């Protein structure tokens, strides 16, 4: 099984430690991980702004670069969602179909493909889990609070076995943080208000660390937190999962 590692553009540029943690974790789990360095981006920023047509070349590059792998794994729910859902506008060749079906977010890959949930994590902290929307509702990583179905959460499943961890309960367990891509720039007031409300929720309930499957959400929340001098740490889920004895 050969894994192609897809590192989203903003993680590549600003949070390489998340990429490093992801790669290390997958290798600890005994996998053959490759990082094709000609990769750039999944094209989501363009598509969400309405410029799907400008993103097609980027889509095609993605498919070309990653089609040789059995699985493509990425520490980003929104990018994976974008590939799986919105690459439907490409002509559906075998290559395209293969890539779309085999691109996974890190947590769902571990739970659904590797079929394991005990990563021997050591993490004695109070953790608030921010449920990034694309991963939650798009990739069905967990049950959204508004759906009347049996409850499950792949992220919580991986976290709760961590030694010493306390996962806090939030007042609004899955409200959007307000990042939304270019929404954060073109609707800055609402975007920041949503982010502040999320941070307040985590603070009220005692979070020492806030984690998520999407670094974009955390980048936005951290940006607000640092400006307000809030005392809370931000770690991508990959970093917590990689704090282990494997």
């Amino acid at each position, binding site marked *: 099984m050969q894994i192609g590692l897809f590192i989203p553009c903003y993680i590549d540029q600003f949070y390489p430690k998340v990429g490093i943690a992801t790669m290390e974790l997958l290798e600890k789990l005994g996998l053959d991980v490759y990082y094709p360095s000609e990769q750039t981006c999944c094209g989501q920023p363009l598509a969400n702004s309405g410029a799907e047509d400008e993103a097609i070349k980027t889509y095609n590059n993605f498919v070309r670069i990653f089609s040789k792998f059995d699985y493509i794994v990425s520490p980003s729910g929104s990018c994976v969602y974008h590939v799986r859902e919105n690459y439907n506008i490409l002509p559906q060749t075998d290559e395209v179909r293969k890539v779309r079906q085999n691109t996974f977010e890190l947590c769902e890959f571990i739970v659904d493909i590797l079929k394991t949930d005990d990563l021997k994590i050591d993490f004695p902290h109070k953790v608030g889990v921010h449920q990034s929307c694309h991963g939650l509702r798009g990739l069905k990583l967990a049950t959204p609070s508004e759906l009347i179905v049996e409850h499950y959460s792949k992220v919580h499943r991986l976290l709760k076995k961590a030694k010493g961890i306390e996962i806090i309960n939030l007042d609004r367990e899955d409200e959007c943080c307000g*990042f939304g891509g270019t929404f954060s720039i073109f609707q800055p007031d609402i975007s920041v208000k949503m982010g502040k409300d999320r941070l307040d929720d985590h603070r009220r309930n005692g979070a020492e660390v806030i984690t998520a499957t999407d670094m974009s959400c955390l980048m936005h929340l951290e940006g607000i937190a640092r400006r307000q001098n809030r005392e809370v740490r931000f770690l991508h889920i990959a970093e917590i999962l990689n704090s282990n004895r494997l």
Partner: protein
Amino acid sequence: MTNHAHRAARFLKNEERAAWHDKTLWMVRKKRDLMALDVPDWEELREQASQIKRHSLSKLDDYLVQFEEHAINNGAQVHWASTAGKLNEIVYQIIKENNASRIVKSKSMLTEECGLNPFLEKRGIEIIDTDLGERIIQLKREPPSHIVMPAIHIKKEEISELFHRELNSEEGNTDPTYLAATARLHLRQKFIEAEVAITGVNFAVAENGAVVVCTNEGNADMGVHAAPIQIHCMGIEKVIPRLSDLAVFTRLLARSATGQPITTYTSHYLNPKPGGQMHIIIVDNGRSELIGKEDYRDSLKCIRCGACMNTCPVYRRSGGHSYHYVIPGPIGSILAPHSNSKEYEDLPFASSLCGSCSDVCPVKIDIHGQLYRWRQDLSQQGARSPIKKGIMKVSGKILASDKMYDWSGKVARWCIKYLPRVLIYNRLNTWGRERELPEVPRESFKEWYNKNFREGDKNGQK
């Protein structure tokens, strides 16, 4: 910044009011959750409702004809209006032919959409909105900010002031029970004297020609049964095939809208009262065209419950008026561009695409999917400013080339790291107004990777 963004910024300036608005609507969403949890097959019910609506839309002409036939047999008069203007004309004609001057109306988003009130008022006809919330905004001369709770943005102090001014209520008495009682008294006379009662239509049953109206206040019934002439205005998409289908929709509607098991009154009107007249006006106003748009047709399934608004984190923090369209929130944002793509091009972008709206929609409209679609269609139709167009084109080129991408990233990081703060955090930097930019790492992931692994070693060359 776009229209919605500007208005939203204004809304947020009143922090206390905005926080109250957000908290209150969130509570309505939680009430909905509790109700839904109580229905053993809630998700199946949603699927059923969706399919019934999809089916109805696929045979809408047949069902409308069937509905009309039964309605006429029952003793109602059926009229057709292809445009908003035609609806207004028909209502006006009915009023004039019957020499009526005292008109009451219960909630109808359709008549709001068509501008019925201003049309009649211009012709010297007074029309009284009888829902308490609608009456409040009518007196205040404001548009509704929510389709179910139109006065949600107004505090009781303001209502007290308004009622004192317009209805002679006690000055300074802000007790909601007193204020509601004042409205009850004031409107009671209007009902008794009413000559024409206008209502909206929640559902129109093809099988038997029944018009179904759901209210909590009872004002639709007060008007309809007191006034000799009743007029029901419906969009073409309101028709459903069978009486039994009503079970599905009545189980979903109030639970989704307000967290009640059912509205206080679910009234089925089939024929006029002895000596009275019953009119049904079937309105198109762009809906038949929307049926032809495969990407957006499903928005016609909407039963106007407002659940999408209650769950939307953006709506809760921006208020209905920020959407500057008769119907606000997520559903409004996918209906408005169809009505006028230039005026409402900002609305599909007034969303973080979180997807919660689609999950609470009782008829399973893929609202966030349609928002995404509209973004593409509007951009192609030229909604993009030349600047934005340029930026997208350049970005597209950069992201498609790994060398350009690497270089751009390097430049961006260098700028953030080394340029003086005052240059970076200026008015142009919208992100930086209330957020810090991310800290710049020593090297990008790619740089780290290429440094630590030999070229061709692990980069996918098998």
